[in-house]
């Protein structure tokens, strides 16, 4: 745990250094936010909420950081037809009681019209019913639990551990020859338990073997987890963890010379610009990561806009990871939906209807069209890319590809009904 506490701030610092791509960060001229008027909005503020989970053992604040930057940019460029967005962000600190309190505060006391950029491991579980009861939508960005993808009023732009983890395993089976994978996650039923359970089903469906190794999130013991993986005789390790613990486990393996004993794959959390400074050369060419959105140095218009907006409007120390991209694009889709409304008739009901009316919008950050619709569950993003960690950065080894799992059956039905697939 001490190792972990050292790594997390180091990574946060590295991620906060906004010099990861000077070319992108300098592209202010390409910045585009909302109405692009260049004049600050001065009307009656529109209250929007956001909840992140930022405390040991993980920091999921990238989504709200980027959403805050985008909304600041929107407000400086005419707002929502003259009305600025007042973005209120709360931190649930991985505490279910606190998550319930801040959710209630935002939805009932502050009367937010929607929540955008949310990222947490506990908040969605505690507040999913509240959102449904109060008719408020949450356009989340850094979701990691089942409630995010199985609730009527939550739609997340990031894939979450299930598609991203299966995406990583699909690559591992097809390209690395994986036969038996260990899914290492937190022992939280709707997080590590849920995701690793579906990993194992996926492995079985491919005639392979999967083993869950779940650890106590309050007492992370990475050495014992590593030894357990050795004892299970797996050939692949899937790091179903937030960035801090995942890097901690890689460090344990490095100390014990364990790199070549396994194939190492991970879902998206470990994909951060500053990760090279922490991992060093040892892992170069040996760590494969499924990324849920585009590479952070990709050349698409939305990605360049994300880099420019976060460089100009972000705060020092903001995380610039996949969840940041996700928060940015969530905020953009949200803003675009609000701009279709009469500014005098913006309230929770009209905003919820506008969000549910989002169907088939596209972004270079995503592999497929984004949609919400009126459904009992949402998972618009389930196709990702695969990158390999190399020389302190990441190189794409497989571009956009989807996954095949029974979990997506109801999602595929929705997409057919909305005319987004055949």
């Amino acid at each position: 745990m001490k190792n972990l506490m050292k790594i997390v701030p180091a990574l946060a610092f590295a991620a906060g250094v906004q010099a990861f791509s000077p070319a992108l960060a300098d592209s202010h001229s390409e910045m585009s936010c909302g109405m692009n008027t260049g004049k600050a909005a001065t009307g009656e503020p529109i209250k929007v909420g956001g909840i992140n989970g930022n405390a040991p053992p993980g920091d999921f604040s990238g989504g709200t950081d980027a959403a805050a930057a985008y909304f600041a940019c929107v407000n400086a460029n005419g707002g929502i037809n003259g009305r600025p967005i007042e973005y209120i962000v709360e931190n649930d600190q991985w505490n279910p009681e606190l998550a319930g309190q801040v959710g209630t505060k935002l939805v009932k006391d502050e009367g937010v019209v929607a929540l955008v950029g949310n990222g947490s491991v506990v908040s969605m579980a505690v507040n999913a019913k509240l959102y449904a009861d109060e008719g408020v939508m949450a356009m989340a960005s850094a979701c990691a639990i089942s409630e995010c993808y199985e609730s009527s009023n939550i739609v997340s732009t990031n894939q979450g551990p299930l598609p991203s983890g299966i995406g990583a395993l699909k690559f591992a089976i097809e390209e690395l020859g994986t036969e038996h994978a260990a899914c290492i996650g937190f022992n939280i039923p709707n997080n590590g338990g849920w995701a690793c359970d579906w990993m194992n089903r996926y492995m079985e469906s491919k005639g392979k073997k999967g083993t869950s190794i779940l650890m106590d999130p309050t007492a992370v013991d990475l050495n014992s987890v590593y030894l357990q993986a050795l004892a299970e005789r797996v050939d692949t390790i899937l790091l179903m963890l937030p960035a801090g613990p995942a890097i901690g486990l890689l460090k344990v393996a490095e100390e014990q010379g364990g790199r070549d004993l396994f194939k190492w794959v991970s879902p998206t959390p470990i994909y951060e610009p500053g990760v090279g400074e922490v991992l060093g050369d040892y892992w170069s060419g040996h760590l494969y990561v499924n990324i849920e959105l585009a590479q952070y140095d990709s050349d698409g218009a939305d990605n360049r806009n994300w880099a420019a907006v976060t460089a100009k409007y972000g705060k020092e120390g903001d995380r610039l990871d996949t969840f940041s991209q996700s928060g940015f694009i969530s905020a953009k889709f949200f803003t675009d939906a609000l701009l279709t409304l009469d500014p005098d008739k913006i309230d929770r009901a009209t905003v919820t209807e506008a969000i549910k009316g989002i169907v088939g919008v596209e972004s270079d950050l995503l592999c497929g069209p984004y949609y919400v619709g009126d459904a009992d569950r949402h998972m618009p993003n389930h196709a990702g890319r695969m990158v390999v960690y190399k020389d302190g950065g990441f190189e794409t080894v497989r571009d956009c590809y989807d996954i095949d799992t029974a979990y997506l059956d109801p999602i595929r039905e929705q997409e057919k009904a909305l005319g987004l697939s055949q």
Partner: protein
Amino acid sequence: MIQTLSRNNLIILVVIVAAIWLLPLVLNSLWIKVVTSAVIFGLAAAGISVLFAQLGLINLSQIALVGIGGWVLLRLNYATGLPFTISLVAGGIITAIISSILALPALRMRGLYLALVTLMTAGAFQIIFNAFQFPNGGEGFWGVAQQSAGAFRRPLIAQSDVSYLRYVLTVAALCIAVAGVHRLTTPGRAWAMIRQSEANAMAAGIDVTFFKMWAFALSGFMAGIAGGLLAGALQQLDARTFVASDSILLFALAIVGGVYHWLGALIAGLLFKLLPALFNDFGVSADLTLVIFGAALLHAIMTAPRGIAGQILSGFAGLVKHRETSHD
């Protein structure tokens, strides 16, 4: 003096009952949730007070017992169609039984050694909660499925947060009243004698083993009820809520609040949940409350052994006496 104290108790009781019905009307949604949590943990603190004030026994496993009560309520909620209140009482009774079994080592231990044993118990339950998690609608004994939690049933009369706060206040008041009745009747007299001298108590014909286990059972019952109420408040539970260190903190706050009066337990609950929430709302790290709690504990140990409640009650009694003297 007794008459004065009784009258003071009555006045404070009236104020608290009025607060029960007025608080939900004046608090906003955030503070309704916070006060609900504060009252729940105040009830758990009242259980600590029963053992410490009556028998001088230190129990550092109260948060674990709260978790047990919550576990039972969740399990019954998902496995049966029992009304919430029945499940709540069942959780309290099962926790009382477990607590009285855990009391067995206490029959021969006091002070630091008992504190260590109960703390290790809390640690053991922390591991169990983390390993097996809380029921969420799954099958089998543990009732845990690797999925989202199933639908939870609150009491029919307490569906909203406001009505649930009133429900919690009412249940807490009833439990504290039960503890008060114990204090004034045979168990209370037996506990007082045991505290003075176990040998004398045995010589007087008191079954020391039985009454000690009874005290642990009552304390556990209150913790179990608190756990069930917490499960109802959150509509799910997470193992991270029941770490062993929080048992130490709650015990310390029970001392700060005052273990010799039920008002002290309420103060302990408010300190435990309200103060961190205030800090969070002001954007200040809630960890700072630990510094304040440490200073408050030192203050209580050195200058206010009856806690904040004792100071309030003494001040109130002095005020009444002063007024009576003035009238005379």
